[in-house]
């Protein structure tokens, strides 16, 4: 039953995904901009409250439930779908375009879902759309990583669905209403499913595995939706779960440590998604209004600067065909525009004043301070040192400076730079005018990021991080290696199964077969010819003429003559003796 007909924003993008194949090929890229823009307009203008619910079996599916929290997430999801559409304007592959719209639409569906069943449906649609963006790279590595990505997300979806079904059986309600109880198993199952999508260790390895292997433009969409829609659900139903503070801080540091080791530029960025989402998860754990505002604001900022960083890395990959630091270097003269647009993202993620990371990350850290969780304040600040080290220094230094790799990049499609410029402008805009964002956060707050102590902090940390980097940059030289992560648990057994269980077993049977054949040949060889003495007697062949026993045949006439002669002798003897 439709209570009041309003087009939910998710349906605009999903309709776009369905209609796109019918749009003439030349207009599809433009359509990929129009649908997100229309969705953005609807998100912006939707009145607060339940807008659309339908009855399904005996449950009420609430397809669109708008409040300040869902709206701000909806705005940034639609906005980045638009910016990503500009960046991917040159892509003419229908599959990727449809997948991107499906993925973005499903993320909007999660943000506006008013009940668990609706949320779950969109949750799984997200997994499908995003998997295709990995597969569409069409390399052997991306095929395998995409399959692992899909399986891991189906497992996460299974956890989520189990929790949802258990919750429905406990409460009889499908509504997403308020903080979940920590005493209920269903809450922990739901947390497991959501934590997997938020890339909380040890359930995070899918991210650093799959994102670097996705298509150039697909990775931009991937960086925006999956983890941040999970953060949205955390803010919605898990605020104040204290375990999330520790998990968030671990994430923030974990991503940083692994990014220092990573060789692939998009893998470095992927690990820093984990690190940045760590701040948001910690904010949810703190659970105060300031912390939840901080988490929301940081998700908003993060989607912008992380998309920008992936766009920059994507241009490098698109124009050089390379993405490993060991194969890059000395590109600054060929691609200065890409470098500087990338650096806007790097300054943002590092929390430099005037950029949007400064005005959102600090809200979470301040909230931890106000809640007197000093260890979290110090460790989150420490993580920001590592962020600047990897994203602001290591990656650009070894990509654009350092030893010249000798590659001469091609010219990227102009729209890639346009997309980057738009997102970079937004990073700067929200950095200098934080109230543009603050006023739309879920809770009213009076927070001033531009204080002298905060500016002192964010001046001293980067300068001395840089000094230490410059002194020890030789230590950061990467090698062509991979870094083991928790995906070892399912990737190494796969290798074990392939090489030991299948390979070695097949080898064993092969050896057994060979031995059996050889034995049969030897035994049959013994019986394919008469004993050598007989052969010698009846054969014409001189000794040692090289003929093999199996091949050399005795002279049959002589044998028959010999046998007949024996008969004659026996007959004569019997005749004369019997006489």
């Amino acid at each position, binding site marked *: 039953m439709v209570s009041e007909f309003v087009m939910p924003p998710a349906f605009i993008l999903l309709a776009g995904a369905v209609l796109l194949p019918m749009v003439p090929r030349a207009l599809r890229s433009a359509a990929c901009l129009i649908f997100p823009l229309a969705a953005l307009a609807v998100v912006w203008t939707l009145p607060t409250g339940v807008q659309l619910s339908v009855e399904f079996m005996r449950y009420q599916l609430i397809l669109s439930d708008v409040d300040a929290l869902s709206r701000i997430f909806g705005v940034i999801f639609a906005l980045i779908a638009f910016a990503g559409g500009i960046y991917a304007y040159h892509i003419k592959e229908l599959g990727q375009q449809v997948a991107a719209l499906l993925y973005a639409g499903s993320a909007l569906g999660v943000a506006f879902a008013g009940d668990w069943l609706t949320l779950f449906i969109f949750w799984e649609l997200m997994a499908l759309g995003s998997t295709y963006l990995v597969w569409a790279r069409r390399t*052997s*590595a991306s095929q*395998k990583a995409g399959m692992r990505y899909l399986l891991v997300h189906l497992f996460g979806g299974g956890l989520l669905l189990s929790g949802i079904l258990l919750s429905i059986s406990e409460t009889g309600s499908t509504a997403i209403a308020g903080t979940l109880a920590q005493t209920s198993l269903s809450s922990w199952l739901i947390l497991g499913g959501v934590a997997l999508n938020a890339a909380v260790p040890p359930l995070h390895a899918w991210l650093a595995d799959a994102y670097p292997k996705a298509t150039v433009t697909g990775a931009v969409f991937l960086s925006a939706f999956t983890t941040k829609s999970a953060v949205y659900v955390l803010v919605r139903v898990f605020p104040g779960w204290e375990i999330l503070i520790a998990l968030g801080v671990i994430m923030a540091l974990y991503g*940083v*440590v*692994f990014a*220092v*080791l990573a060789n692939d530029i998009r893998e470095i960025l992927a690990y820093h998604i984990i690190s940045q989402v760590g701040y948001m998860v910690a904010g949810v754990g703190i659970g105060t209004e300031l912390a939840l505002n901080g988490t929301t604001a940081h998700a908003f900022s993060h989607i912008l600067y992380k998309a920008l960083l992936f766009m920059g890395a994507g241009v490098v990959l698109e124009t050089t065909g390379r993405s490993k630091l060991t194969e890059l270097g000395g590109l600054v003269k060929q691609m200065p525009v890409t470098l500087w647009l990338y650096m806007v993202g790097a300054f943002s993620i590092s929390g430099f004043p005037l950029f949007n990371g400064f005005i959102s990350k600090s809200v979470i850290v301040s909230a931890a*301070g106000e809640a007197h969780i*000093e260890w979290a*304040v*110090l460790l989150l*600040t*420490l993580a920001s*040192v*590592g962020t600047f*080290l990897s994203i602001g220094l290591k990656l650009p230094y070894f990509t654009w400076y350092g030893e010249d790799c000798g590659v001469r990049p091609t010219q990227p499609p102009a729209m890639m730079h346009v997309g980057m410029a738009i997102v970079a402008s937004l990073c700067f805009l929200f950095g200098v005018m934080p109230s543009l964002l603050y006023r739309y956060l879920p809770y009213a707050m009076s927070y001033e990021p531009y204080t*002298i*102590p905060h*500016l*002192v*902090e964010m*001046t*001293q*940390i*980067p*300068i*001395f*991080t*840089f*000094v*230490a*980097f*410059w002194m*020890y940059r030789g*230590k*950061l030289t990467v*090698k*062509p*290696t*991979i*870094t*083991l*992560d928790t995906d070892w648990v399912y*990737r*190494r057994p*796969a*290798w074990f199964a*392939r*090489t030991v269980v299948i390979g070695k077993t097949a080898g064993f049977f092969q050896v057994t077969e060979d031995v059996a054949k050889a034995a049969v040949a030897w035994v049959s060889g013994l019986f394919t010819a008469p004993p050598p003495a007989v052969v010698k007697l009846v054969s014409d062949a001189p000794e040692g003429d090289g003929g093999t026993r199996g091949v050399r045949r005795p002279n049959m006439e002589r044998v028959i003559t010999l046998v007949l002669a024996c008969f004659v002798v026996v007959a004569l003897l019997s005749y004369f003796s019997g006489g």
Partner: protein
Amino acid sequence: MKRWHWWTLGVLAAVSLAAEFVVPHDPSHWWTVVPAFYMIFGFLGCLLFIFFSKALGKLFLQQSEDYYGE
């Protein structure tokens, strides 16, 4: 890095240090009253990540690219 780059960073660091003594400290945490705390924090933090990560990598995390045999 050109000489003026270092000068700029030096001046910025000096200004930030001076600001610590001009503006009253936020007394909510013990470290906010330690002069140049964030300079030391940034420097040592960076070294910590470089050496800790590399040590972990050497210990067991870094493997050859065909480790998974794919």
